């Protein structure tokens, strides 16, 4: 039996927290890129393209993330791809994030007055230029608070990847708990580490919200 001092536990948890941070960032960036593509489909002029994007978003918002991760983990090998927990976790969270981010940004696009599009068109801009120069910058700027809020949700969601075997904070804490039999202390510390990661972002989102309301 290995003896764990308090600082051993803390050190191991902090080392594992690096993977939680890395996974959150990878999923946020990946989700942002895929989410942009979904957004393009969601606000396109073509009715079918809008419907497909709505279906995609409804699918990811209407099923548990845990199921999405399981399908990724067990489904991709059926397509002949060799897959490890890290790949399944990043891909699963990327698609999950893309649906939510696309929907958040879509609400920003919808909130803009129709005149913004008309003004762009009257300046002779074509569709993509209108999006790039006029619509998207404003849409992103008014949805900054919910986007940061979603990042908090994403960080918390990385905990689920422990279930498909990715070695992040929660999985490491399970292992430490099995060795030390001190669940109160171990899970308390894990909660504290998550809190320290999420709380500043929550406060930041709140200040963005206040600033937006004051404008």
């Amino acid at each position, binding site marked *: 039996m290995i003896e764990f001092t308090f600082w051993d536990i803390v050190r191991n948890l902090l080392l594992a927290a690096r993977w939680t941070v890395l996974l959150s960032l990878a999923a946020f960036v990946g989700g942002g890129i895929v989410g942009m593509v979904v957004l393009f489909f969601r606000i396109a002029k073509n009715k079918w393209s809008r419907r497909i994007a709505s279906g995609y978003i409804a*699918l990811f918002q*209407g*099923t*548990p*993330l*845990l*199921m*999405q991760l*399981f*399908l990724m983990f*067990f*489904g991709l090998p*059926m397509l002949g791809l060799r897959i490890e927990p890290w790949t399944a976790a990043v891909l699963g969270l990327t698609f999950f994030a893309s649906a939510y981010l696309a929907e958040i940004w879509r609400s920003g696009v919808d909130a803009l007055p129709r005149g913004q599009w008309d003004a762009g068109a009257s300046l002779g801009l074509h569709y993509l230029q209108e999006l790039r120069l006029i619509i998207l910058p404003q849409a992103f700027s008014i949805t900054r608070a919910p986007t940061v809020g979603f990042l*908090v949700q994403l960080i*918390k*969601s*990385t*905990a*689920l990847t*422990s*279930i498909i075997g990715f070695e992040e904070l*929660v999985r490491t*804490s*399970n292992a430490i*708990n099995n060795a030390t039999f*001190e*669940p*109160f202390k171990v*899970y*308390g510390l*894990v*909660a504290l580490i*998550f*809190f320290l990661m*999420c*709380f500043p972002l*929550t406060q930041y989102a709140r200040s963005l919200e206040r600033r937006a309301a004051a404008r």
Partner: protein
Amino acid sequence: MAFAWLPGALGDIAHGAVTTILLIAVTTLAGTLLSILGAAGRRNGPVLLKRAIGWYVEVMRNTPFLVQLFFIFFGLPSLGIRLDPLLAAMLAMTLNMAAYTIEIVGAGLDAVPGGQTEAALALGLRPRQVFIKIVLPQALKIIYPALTSQIVIMMLESAVVSQIAVRELTYEADMLQARTFRSFETYFVVTLVYLALSMALRRLLVTGGRRALGAGVS
């Protein structure tokens, strides 16, 4: 893809779905009640209570549900509080949901014009009657759509409680795939069941809310 195992598994899937429905039903009732008390306490309670509720909301909203669940199920026994899995799951889900709905209900309470309270007091109602009969119904009507989405989110979150061996839908899926070796197909079918459940739950809440709270609820 092979689905020959499916007919024999329908019983297990249905059983799991019933437990998931039970979990969300209990959570919805207990969580809403708790959040009404919490939101009222945060506005009218003593300073210490206000501060405690504020911290409770922050802690629950900034930590993962899975960790809260493990803390309650594995951590509390060392304080002498031992809960069976189903009870622990219900407690964790209720406490988690309340943290979100305290804010939602609070926003609703703030949105009811102050004149409503003044008018009710002027009619001779006692403060408690004013809250229960005048302010709360109006607040609930305002926040009903937000409450509905939170309940659906909670239902999807409940998949996680399979990790402490509550025999709900995901737990049954785990058992099935271990028996059939058809992991992808099993989770695919169960995902569709969750999708149907979440759509049905949303529909039920919207029509039920329209009946209970009157027109204008979406």
